[in-house]
């Protein structure tokens, strides 16, 4: 039992000598991490959303320009941790520079996101936001896939049942959805099974892309599947 050996890794692609490959890898990484980085920056440095957005934009631009991620060593840490440390360094430098030129010394204090209370630390917050971003990307991709394949009904059922899981008796929910969508219960469960399988596949495919190797992929998959805490 083992996982496929050949796999595309945007983390590795980000330091590729090929410019096209690098650019593609950056797109993948930015798509996966833009939201969590932006939220993390806003929370950690008490910035308003617009400033956090600018800093995030600046961080990714600088990382691409200066090829920051080429120094990433998968044997030392997960890419997610490495990225967060890079963000910390970048923002700290930017703020220092801003203070020196007496610009932006008074950052706007925003209301602390109450989600921080649920996370034991900023690192947990960053991780939780990353999970949220991964799931959001996967749900969007699932929706596109369903539209392309003419399975809109499957996505609508998935969105009704699995995005809004209210912990009711599953059988009762299937019957309710069957009545709502004028379908037999068996078709509801078949559509849902297909959508769920695709959702899992998409999440894991995206995860493979943004991890450097199988070991990191397995650790992050354990996290997404809730088996391990970090």
């Amino acid at each position, binding site marked *: *039992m*083992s*996982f496929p050996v050949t796999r595309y890794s945007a983390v590795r692609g980000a330091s590729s000598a090929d410019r096209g490959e690098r650019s593609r890898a950056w797109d993948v990484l930015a798509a996966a991490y833009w*939201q969590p980085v932006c939220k993390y920056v806003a929370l950690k440095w008490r910035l308003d959303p617009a400033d956090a957005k600018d800093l995030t934009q600046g961080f990714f631009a600088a990382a691409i320009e200066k090829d920051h991620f080429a120094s990433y060593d998968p044997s030392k840490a997960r890419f997610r941790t490495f990225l967060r440390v890079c963000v910390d360094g970048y923002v700290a430098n930017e703020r220092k520079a801003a203070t020196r030129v007496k610009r932006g010394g008074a950052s706007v204090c925003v209301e602390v996101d109450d*989600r921080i209370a*649920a996370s034991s630390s900023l690192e947990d917050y960053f991780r*939780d936001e990353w*999970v*949220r*971003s991964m*799931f*959001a*990307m*996967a*749900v*969007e991709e699932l929706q596109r896939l369903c539209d392309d394949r003419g399975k809109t009904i499957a996505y609508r059922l998935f969105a009704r049942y*699995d*995005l*809004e*899981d209210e912990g009711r008796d599953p059988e009762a929910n299937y019957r309710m959805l069957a009545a709502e969508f004028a379908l037999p219960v068996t078709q509801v469960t078949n559509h849902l*099974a297909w959508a*769920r*399988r695709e*959702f*899992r*596949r998409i*999440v*894991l495919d995206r995860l493979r892309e943004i991890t450097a190797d*199988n070991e990191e*992929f*397995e650790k992050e*998959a*354990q996290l*997404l*599947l*809730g*088996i*391990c805490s970090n």
Partner: protein
Amino acid sequence: MLELSDRNVAALRRVLEQPDSNGRYHPVREIARGGMGVVWEADDRELGRRVALKILPFGAASADWLCREARVLAGLEHPGIVPVHDAGLLADGRAFYAMKLVQGNRLDQAVAGLTRNQRLRIFQRICEPVEFAHSRGIIHRDLKPENVMVGEFGEVLVMDWGVAKLSSGGPETGIIGTPQYMAPEQAAGANDTVDQRSDVYGLGGILQFLLADQPSSRPLQAICKKAMAQDPRERYATAAAMSADVGKFLEGEPVSAYRENPFEVAWRWMARHRTLVLLFLGYVVMRALVLYFLGR
């Protein structure tokens, strides 16, 4: 980008966790969760029965581990060991195996309200599959109340053979087991010296657990003490020998682990032959009454 709430994320995580075996097993509910994986109750649609699906976290090492446990279980056909029906990979790559679904409770939940003797009989039934495994060269290495199930018809099953040591297995490193029930040689990581007496230590821990809230009895304490001796040579040589000693206690006979004084011997004899003693006392009383009323 789509903005998901915490509730959405939790719901999607549940979707992600659900086992997808490409149709054969339909998940019904999560039964248990631990560091070594998740156990789901599932419908086996091929054979029309309920099974327990044990699913391990991602990772090739975990898959190897699961295969190993499945192989160990498949080689142990005993009423006290849960039979394995199937093993493989889920659609997402996680390893799983399907086993008989045991309807019942874990030992630590099942013994509440049971008398001491009922608990001791359950203990004897725990010893049976352990002894059977030993006869096949397999040492469980993680015997504890949480790894024993008591079914709703009184069947006793020893679970979690994932860390079992096979006599044919190669050298192993690391500490294996649960600290509270782990023999000293296991705690020291001396896996080469681990043998059936290490399981006897675990059985001693289980017996101690079963008797924790029961009236103390010196012979039973001595049985626990002998089973949990620091030096493996001082323990019972086999699970069967320990079970036999518990059986002797239940029968009112002297146990090998404890030397009784004459008073204890007499007391045990009277307890064992209670009816006879009562009859004899009745005879004496009757004699006294006859003497009192008719002897004058």
